[in-house]
């Protein structure tokens, strides 16, 4: 943890301990806890401070900001152009989010940050001066104003208060708010909602608010075809009832949330002390402007009727609704039972917000005017272009169509994942188990979300799975975004491989005029199969009666579809001794019964459910991230280095590699695998922080031995024999006819002879001769064909079922070895070093005046004897003595 700047945050003993007023008997994970004032005296912050001036080990409840949005997230990349804040391009001032991300590397008139803090909160109204409603954090001028900075709170919750323009600490804000201090991470899921328009030609178009899942579904009432213009995406939260289990989910309560960025394009807050930007780091200030950025997510807590209400904004905040409330039928949440209520808000109504002094900049939105960007203009003919766009009813929208709807979906996932929460894409999925394939979980790295997410069983591998609430994140909002120890590698983050980064659709894969990838794509499918599926295939392959070989046709039809040789369809099967879907977060396109050739297993054969996950071609490559550990020696002692200490990283599947202590000491060691699923080959990538240092090849998957009955060859043998037999039958018949003919010829010869002159005529004799000869010949042919028929029958009866091997097993010893990566240290044993410093002196490399460096035993390498009024002989003695060791 970074050293806390007390000039900003004050002394620790003066910090406020923000506590929850929740009932102690309720499990944390089942409740949303508010950081609030003491429940018995919530009137003023003075009273609170006086009552709770506690020196705690955790002076600031970091759960108020349990995590941060990383540098790739929209709210960490806000640009300012011509007084408007948004994700903009400096060149034309109009750039949608995606283009903005693409241009992140070109810094400019942009406020970028490594991490952006945010807070979830509820409040009664936007900030009002001296307003006495609800829970208040109240600073009265001249009283406890010097303590104001002790309370870490995003100034979004404080608002834009004119008194701050004085630039000192004499504030007079009143905050009516409740902060969500503890979010029960496993019982509170986020659902992104899309705010969209059907038309961009009319002034003041009314936006609709729909689930992401509905929006991308063209069959829904409101979707990207009916409402193609997206203005923004926000969040709602669904919380579980108390006492629910993972398998009995019922997340009834919906809390309307939003993310806002506050802009105040005036100089009003110019002199506001930096530390008032608690929600952001002090670099949040932008140029000479006191742009006031903050991210707030929360719901109104309306004291008067005790109901949860959507929060629309703050003073000068985008999406300000002029505090339009919509009452909902909700009971008090102060009795500890509010999560039992079925609360749904009419989002469509409450979101009909008028854009105030700023632009809508919620969790994810667009602003721009590019090829597929449409600006909803004010069509007042009396307005100039500028006025049209500045009109409060102006929307900036991005057109979503069939070509980019999936891209849009991924972007929303990305933006939602940054908060590190569980989330689903639509309300219909709100009650899914947390490890369902359609349940997503934002991945936090060192407490910071960068938009990556897991889903399905892989969710169990995230830290949040074991948390009761987000407070268990070790992220500290006071930590500077870039550690100042000079030991980070802020560069080279791009070398972190991304799954699917390699694409066979790129590069030179062209053969003649044929794009090879077309061939690949058309001929190859990848599946991820579990053990039972493989067993089913094995069963299917063997499920036929060898004793009745002629029944093979039935077998083929039944088992393999009869139209293909199944063995020719298996290209390879690679075995992994773990669940690669879970480890590598592989996106699948759903489970299916694998078609092998023309065979698709059906239920009468496949009983154990040989369902496999079909994956795309790009999934041939995967990333396994094993996370990072701190290198076990800090490097503060020479004994941490070689030859006194050696460190070896054991990398499962790849062997071991020695890590140079001088290189890694003080850093973290991160291990990732880049895996070619199809071959089983992998590269272990060892990082020092984010800098890749070592690459180890290895074998993670083992190609299994594939041999199978060669049905096609066998079929061919039998078929050829059958055809041959059929031919022989036909020839036998012909021979029979030939024999009969010859007999007729003989008879005819006799008849002719007898019928004329009683003597054999040459013709009759010839006929008789030829008939007899043919008779003999046909008889011989029939005999030979009988032999052939017997031979064919014998061949059929004794045909051997051929087998064919299409792949050879590779060594699988890696799969049997230890599976947990670890760093092993070997350290030297020290001898007795009593009085070592006094007798030998500790190693030291310091330069300066001797009196300032060392006392006791001292050895100098060089000494400047200028200034000593001694003879040269004496100086030489001095130099000699000091290099030999003296006691100072």
């Amino acid at each position: 943890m970074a050293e806390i700047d007390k000039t900003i945050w004050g002394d620790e003993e003066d910090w406020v301990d923000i506590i929850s007023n929740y009932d102690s008997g309720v499990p944390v994970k089942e409740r949303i806890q508010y950081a609030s004032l003491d429940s018995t005296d919530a009137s003023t912050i003075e009273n609170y401070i006086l009552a709770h001036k506690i020196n705690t080990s955790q002076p600031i409840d970091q759960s108020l900001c349990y995590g941060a949005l990383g540098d790739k997230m929209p709210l960490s990349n806000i640009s300012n152009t011509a007084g408007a804040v948004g994700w903009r391009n400096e060149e034309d001032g109009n750039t949608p989010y995606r283009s903005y991300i693409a241009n992140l590397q070109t810094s400019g008139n942009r406020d970028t940050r490594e991490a952006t803090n945010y807070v979830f909160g509820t409040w009664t109204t936007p900030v009002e001066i001296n307003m006495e409603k609800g829970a208040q954090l109240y600073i009265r001028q001249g009283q406890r104003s010097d303590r104001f900075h002790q309370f870490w709170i995003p100034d979004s919750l404080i608002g834009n208060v004119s008194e701050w323009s004085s630039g000192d600490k004499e504030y007079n804000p009143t905050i009516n708010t409740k902060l969500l201090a503890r979010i029960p991470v496993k019982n509170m899921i986020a659902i992104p909602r899309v705010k969209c328009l059907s038309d961009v030609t009319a002034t003041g178009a009314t936006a609709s608010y729909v689930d992401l899942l509905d929006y991308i579904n063209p069959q829904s009432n409101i979707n990207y075809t009916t409402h193609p213009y997206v203005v923004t995406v926000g969040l709602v939260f669904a919380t579980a009832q108390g006492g629910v289990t993972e398998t009995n989910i019922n997340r009834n309560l919906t809390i309307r949330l939003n993310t806002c960025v506050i802009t105040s394009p005036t100089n009003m807050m110019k002199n506001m002390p930096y530390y008032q930007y608690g929600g952001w780091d002090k670099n949040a200030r932008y140029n000479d402007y006191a742009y006031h950025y903050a991210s707030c997510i929360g719901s109104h807590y309306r004291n008067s009727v005790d109901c949860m209400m959507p929060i629309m904004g703050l003073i000068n905040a985008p999406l300000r609704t002029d505090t339009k409330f919509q009452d909902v039928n909700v009971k008090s949440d102060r009795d500890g039972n509010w999560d039992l209520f079925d609360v749904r808000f009419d989002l469509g109504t409450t979101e009909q917000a008028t854009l105030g002094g700023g632009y809508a900049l919620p969790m994810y939105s667009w602003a721009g005017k590019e090829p597929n960007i449409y600006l909803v203009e004010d069509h007042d003919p009396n307005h100039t272009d500028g006025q049209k766009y500045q009109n409060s009813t102006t929307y900036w929208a991005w057109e979503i169509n069939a070509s980019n709807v999936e891209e849009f979906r991924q972007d929303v996932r990305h933006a939602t994942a940054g908060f590190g929460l569980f989330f689903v894409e639509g309300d219909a999925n709100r009650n899914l188990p947390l490890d369902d394939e359609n349940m997503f979980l934002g991945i936090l790295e060192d407490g910071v979300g960068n938009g990556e997410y897991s889903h399905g069983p892989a969710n169990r591998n995230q830290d949040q799975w074991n948390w009761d609430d987000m407070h268990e994140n070790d992220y500290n909002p006071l930590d500077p975004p870039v550690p100042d120890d000079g030991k980070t590698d802020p560069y080279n983050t791009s070398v972190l491989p991304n799954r699917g980064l390699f694409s066979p659709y790129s590069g030179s894969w062209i053969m003649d005029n044929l794009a090879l990838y077309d061939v690949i794509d058309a001929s190859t499918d990848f599946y991820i199969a579990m053990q039972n599926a493989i067993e089913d295939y094995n069963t299917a392959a063997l499920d036929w009666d060898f004793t009745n070989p002629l029944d093979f046709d039935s077998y083929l039809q039944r088992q393999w579809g009869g139209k293909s040789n199944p063995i020719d369809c298996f290209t390879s099967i690679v075995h992994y001794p773990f669940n690669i879907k879970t480890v590598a977060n592989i996106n699948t396109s759903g489970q299916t019964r694998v078609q092998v050739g023309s065979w698709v297993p059906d239920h009468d054969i496949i009983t154990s459910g040989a369902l496999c996950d079909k994956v795309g071609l790009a999934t041939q490559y995967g990333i396994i991230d094993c996370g990072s550990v701190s290198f076990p020696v800090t490097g503060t002692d020479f004994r941490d280095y070689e030859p006194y200490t050696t460190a070896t990283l054991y990398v499962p599947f790849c062997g071991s590699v020695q890590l140079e202590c001088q290189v890694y000491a003080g850093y973290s060691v991160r291990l990732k695998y880049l895996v070619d699923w199809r071959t089983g080959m992998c590269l272990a990538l060892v990082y020092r922080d984010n800098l890749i240092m070592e690459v180890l090849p290895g074998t993670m998957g083992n190609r299994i031995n594939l041999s199978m009955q060669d049905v096609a060859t066998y079929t061919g043998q039998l078929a050829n024999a059958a055809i041959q037999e059929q031919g022989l039958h036909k020839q036998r018949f012909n021979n029979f006819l030939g024999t009969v003919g010859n007999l007729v010829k003989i008879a005819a010869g006799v008849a002719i002879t007898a019928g004329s002159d009683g003597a054999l005529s040459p013709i009759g004799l010839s006929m008789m001769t030829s008939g007899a000869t043919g008779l003999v010949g046909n008889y011989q042919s029939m005999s030979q064909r009988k032999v052939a028929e017997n031979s064919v029958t014998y061949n059929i009866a004794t045909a051997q079922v051929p087998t064919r091997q299409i792949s050879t097993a590779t060594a699988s010893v890696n799969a049997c070895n230890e599976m947990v990566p670890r760093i092993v240290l070997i350290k030297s044993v020290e001898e007795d070093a009593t009085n070592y410093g006094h007798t030998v002196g500790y190693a030291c490399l310091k330069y300066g005046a001797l009196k300032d460096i060392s006392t006791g035993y001292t050895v100098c390498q060089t000494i400047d004897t200028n200034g000593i009024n001694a003879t040269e002989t004496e100086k030489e003695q001095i130099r000699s003595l000091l290099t030999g060791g003296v006691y100072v």
Partner: protein
Amino acid sequence: MAADALNVFIGSTSDDPRKLDKTITWLVQSGTTTPFEFKCYITGNCDILNPTLVLAYDSNVVGSNYANIPSWGNRYYFITSIQVIPGGKMMLSLSVDVLKTYETAIKECYCCVTRSESAEVNWVTDTCYPINPNEKYIPPSTLFNFSGFTTGQDTYFVDIAEFKQYTFELPELPD
């Protein structure tokens, strides 16, 4: 040539000769704490860095090992030998102690300290540190908090050629 007598303080120290700020117990006048000034004489040419002095025999001097001659630049000396000579005299051989003599000036000097009793710099490799070259130990290893390679959930990556079915009719067998 008879030289003027030198006033010499004589005492003893048990400190390491390499110590700058030595603790010296001077011989004192009887009944006082004031160091006694011995009258010494040189005998011929004398190197003030390694002088030989003659003085009246004093049994207290026999047990001494340190001297100070204020008039010679307030130099401090080690007594390297003591000889008793006839006539009730004794002769002391001295060697200048530059460390004590120039203690203050030396401490002001700029230098590069490579070893120090007080200023340990842990990251500097100490080749003198007593290490047993024949013995090593292995502390508990650092495990990655990664349980993804869990056995019992084996998976297979199956690569299957896509099948496209073609239909055609066999020709009639020839007669």
